[in-house]
C-alpha cells in the first residue's frame, strides 16, 4: 500500500465552512482536519502560511523546479529492463504437463482455482461447468447450465460455492455439496443481471459479493444473498472482457479491460474510474494484477502483453516478439511476479521474464487456442484451459 491520502467516505459539517457535505480527511501542518472538497480546492490554491511571503515561495518553487529538472535529466528514459540489468537471469525452466483434464465435450472457455490449491472449476461452450480435484483427477460435480458459451466461472473463497455465466447475461451462484449425486442446479441462485453476455466474474474477499464484467460495457458489484446491485461501473465504450481485483490490504480497487483497448482502474466504493491506460492497439482480452498490487498486466489481440505501474501512472514494459503474431487471450503472474505466463491463440503458452522483458520458455501441448491461464494460489502449478476441450496443469 503506498502512502497516499485516503478519501474517507464520511458526511458531515466541514471544519472550514460548516456546510454539511462529503468530507475529505486531510492534514494541515500535521493536524488532521476534515474539509469539504470546495474548501480543499480553495486552500490548495491560496494559502500563504504564516511567515511566508510571495517572494520566498517563488524562490522555493524555482529551486525545486531546477532540482526536478536535474533529477529528470538523470533519469530520462530509464526503463524497467535497464534497472533490472544487474539481476541474474532466470535459470532454465523445465516445466511439463502434469495433468490433462478430459471431460468437457466442447471448448473450455474459463477456469478458476479453489483456495485449497488443488480443486478447480471450469466452464465450457457446451454449457457444462465441472468442478475437479486437479490432484486426483476426480470430477466432483458437473453442473449443466441453461445456456451455451459459459464464458466466466469463479470459485468462492470459502470453497463452498461456484459462480458462472455467459450468454444468458446472468451470473449465477451454485452452492456446492459433499454429496456427489446432489442436483446442484436445484439450489441455483441468480445474482447478476446484465443486458449482454457475461465475460468475467469473481468473488471479492468473501462469498457474499460478486464483481462482474459484461459485453454491455459495464462492470458491476452485486450482493449474493439478495441479488441487489451494489455499485455499477460505467466508462468503457465497448465490451468489457476481463477484470481482476486488487490484492491489497485496502481491497478497494479493481482493473478491467475491454474492446475499447482501454484498461480502467476503478474505486469500488464510489464507482469512479480512477485511472485509465490506453496503449494497446487492439482488444484487451485479459487483465491481471501484479502480486504486490502496485501494477497490472494486460493481454491483447495485438499479440503483446503490457505491464502498467499504477503509481507511475504509465506503461512500464511491453512483452512482444516478431515471431509472435497471434493474440494473447489470457495471462497470469507466478507467485513472485518474476514470470508472466501468457496463453496465445496459436495454441502455445509463452513465459516471459517480467524484469528483463525477454521470453524464457514456451509450453506446447494444446491442440487449439488457449483460452485461460491461471497460476495456482500457492504458485506450485499453472493451469491452462483450451478450445481443444481439455485443461492442462503444468509444473
Amino acid at each position, binding site marked *: 500500500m503506498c502512502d497516499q491520502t*485516503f478519501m*474517507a*467516505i*464520511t458526511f*458531515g459539517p466541514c471544519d472550514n465552512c460548516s456546510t454539511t457535505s462529503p468530507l475529505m*480527511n486531510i492534514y494541515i501542518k500535521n493536524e*488532521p482536519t476534515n474539509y469539504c472538497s470546495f474548501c480543499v480546492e480553495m486552500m490548495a490554491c491560496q494559502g500563504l502560511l504564516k511567515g511566508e511571503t510571495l517572494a520566498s515561495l517563488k524562490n522555493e518553487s524555482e529551486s525545486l523546479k531546477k532540482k*526536478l529538472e536535474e*533529477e*529528470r535529466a538523470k533519469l530520462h528514459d530509464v526503463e*524497467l529492463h535497464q*534497472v*533490472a540489468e544487474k*539481476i541474474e537471469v532466470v535459470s532454465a525452466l523445465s*516445466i511439463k504437463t*502434469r495433468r490433462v483434464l478430459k471431460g468437457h465435450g466442447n471448448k473450455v472457455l474459463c477456469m478458476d482455482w479453489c483456495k*485449497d490449491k488443488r*480443486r478447480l472449476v471450469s466452464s465450457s461452450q457446451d454449457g457444462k461447468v465441472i468442478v475437479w480435484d486437479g*490432484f486426483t483427477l476426480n470430477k466432483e460435480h458437473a453442473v449443466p447450465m441453461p445456456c451455451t458459451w459459459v464464458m466466466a466461472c469463479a470459485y468462492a473463497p*470459502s*470453497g*463452498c460455492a461456484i459462480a458462472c455465466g455467459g450468454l444468458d447475461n446472468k451470473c449465477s451462484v451454485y452452492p*456446492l455439496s*459433499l454429496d456427489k449425486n446432489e442436483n446442484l442446479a436445484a439450489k441455483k441462485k441468480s445474482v447478476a443481471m446484465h443486458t449482454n453476455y457475461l465475460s468475467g466474474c469473481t468473488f471479492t474477499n*468473501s462469498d*457474499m459479493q460478486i464483481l462482474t464484467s459484461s459485453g454491455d460495457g459495464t462492470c458491476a458489484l452485486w450482493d449474493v444473498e439478495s441479488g441487489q446491485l*451494489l455499485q455499477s461501473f460505467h466508462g468503457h465504450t465497448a465490451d468489457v472482457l476481463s477484470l481482476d481485483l486488487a490484492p*491489497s*490490504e485496502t481491497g478497494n480497487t479493481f482493473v478491467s479491460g475491454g*474492446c475499447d483497448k482501454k484498461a480502467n482502474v476503478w474505486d469500488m466504493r464510489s464507482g469512479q474510474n480512477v*485511472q*485509465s491506460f490506453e496503449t*494497446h492497439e487492439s482488444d484487451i482480452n485479459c487483465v491481471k494484477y501484479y502480486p*504486490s498490487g*502496485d*501494477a497490472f498486466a494486460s493481454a491483447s489481440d495485438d499479440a503483446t502483453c503490457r505491464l502498467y505501474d499504477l503509481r*507511475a501512472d*504509465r506503461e*512500464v514494459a511491453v512483452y512482444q516478439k516478431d*515471431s509472435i503474431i497471434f*493474440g494473447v487471450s489470457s495471462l497470469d503472474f*507466478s*507467485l*513472485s*511476479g*518474476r*514470470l508472466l505466463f501468457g496463453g496465445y491463440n*496459436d495454441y*502455445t503458452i509463452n513465459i516471459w521474464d517480467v*524484469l528483463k522483458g525477454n521470453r524464457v520458455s*514456451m509450453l*506446447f501441448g494444446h*491442440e*487449439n*487456442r488457449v483460452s485461460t491461464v491461471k497460476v495456482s494460489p500457492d*504458485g*506450485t*502449478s499453472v493451469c491452462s484451459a483450451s478450445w481443444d*476441450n481439455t485443461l492442462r*496443469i503444468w509444473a
Partner: protein
Amino acid sequence: SKEAGKKDNSTRYSLLASLSCSSTNTVVEMQNPSSGVKGAEQKLNVTTIPHVIAGETHTPIRVKVIKQEAQAFATMLVAYGYIYPLQNHKKLVMCNDASLYRFQTPYFWPTQKWVAEDTDYAIYLAKRNIRKKGMLEPYEQAHYNHLHEWLNHKWDFIVMQATEQYKVARERKKPDRVVFDCQERAYWIVNRPPRYTHSAMDYGPDRLIDPSADQVKGQYRHTHTHTHTHTEWRRLRILLEMVKYITNYKNHDPFLAPCLPSNPWQTESDAYWNLNTRRVDVPTKMRVERWSFSLFELLSDLRGRDDFKIFLKKEFSGENLAFWEAAEEMKWGTASSMSTKAEAIFKTFLAPGAPRWINIDGRTMGLTVKGLDHPHRYVLDAAQTHVFMLMKKDTFFRYLKSPVYKDIQKKALNPEPHNFSDSQVEQNARNRGMGIHPIILWQQEEEERAKAAIASAPVDVKAVMSKIDRKK
C-alpha cells in the same frame, strides 16, 4: 455459421488481420525456389506431383526460432490453410516427420475479402457427387442433405455450376486435376471442418464493437490521467521497488526455487500441502519468513494472524486487530447485515466505555460514530485505515522483534527435500491423498469462529444481573 455471408463481423476480421502480413510473407518466402524450402516430386498412384515438401523440412524460416516454435508456427500455417497435408488430410497440424505437405494455392488462402459461402460448398459437394456417387463422407453427406433442403430454391443453379466445373476439370491434364482436387479438398476441410475436429477458424461469440468504425492502427495515445501529482523522479524508485519485491519472493516462488519437501504436482506427494495447512501446529520456516515481508502477508495467512494475536494478547492490545477484523466482516458482508453489524461494532469498539475501545484520533472517531447513524459497508473505512496504519507502522515491527516471533522462528520446520525415484513417484501417484474437502474445513472454521466470538463478546451486564435475579 449460416450467416457467414451476411456480414463480415469484427472478430473474424481481426482474426484474419492477424494472419495477413506475416503469414503470407512467410509462405511466399518459403516457396522461393532458391532460398525457400526444398520441394520434390512425389509419386502418387500413377502421377507424380511436383513441389511436395516433407514435414521435417519446414524449419528454414528467416527468423531465428527454436525447433518447437517453428513447428508451432508451421501448425498455424496448416491450421489456416496456407499449407495442407497430403496424407492424413483431416488432421490440420504440422507433424515433425516424413509426412508430406504442399503449399496451398493463393486462390484458396484465407482472406477477409472472400468468405466461404454455403452456396460454394453446395456446388463443391454436388460436383463430387457427380464425379462418383457415394464418395461423400458421412458428415459431408449430412451437410449435403441439409443444404439441398434449405438452398432448394437455388438448386438448379447449383447443379448447373457443379456440372460446368466438372466438365472444365475433365479437360485438364491429370496431374493438374489431382493437384486442384487436393487443394480444393484442403480448402473445404479448413472452412467446413469435419465433426469432432478442432478448427482454427472458430472465433467465438461476436464482440459488439462496430466493425465499420475506423481502425486506428499504428496510432495509439498514451493517456496520463494527472489525477495524482506523480513526478518523473519517483519512477526510478518505483521500478526499484518492483525489483525488490521480486527479489524478496524469489525463494518462495515454486517456479524459481524448489519447494520443500517437494512440489506435489511433480512428485505426486501432497506432503507440502499437509505441512502448510491452516491450523498446523508448527509452520515451516519459509512460511514464517513470509510473515515478515509485510503486515498484509502476516494477516493474509490465517496461521500468521493467529501468531500475531498471541503477541497482541501479551501486550493487551488485541482490540486494534479485532476492530480491523470486524470492519472487514462488515465490508465484505451481506447487504442485509449492515445495521446489525454496525450496532455490534459500535457497542464493542467505539462507544464511550466500550469493552474493547479502540484509541483513534478524535476527528476520525467523531466522523465514524456519526456515519454509523446511516451505516453502509464502507462507513468504517477511515477508522479501519487508521488502525491498520497504526499496526503497520508500530505493532508489526515490535512483533517481529518479539519473543513470540523469535520463538516460532526457532520452532519452525525445515523439511528435507524429497528425492523420489521414478518408480517411487509412480507409487505416490497410486496413493494420492484426498486431502480434506474445503466444505468440511469451512464448517470447522465456522465452529472455531463461533467459539472465539463467545469468548470475547462484551458481557451484557443487565442480562447477567437479571439471570442472577431470576435464580434467587
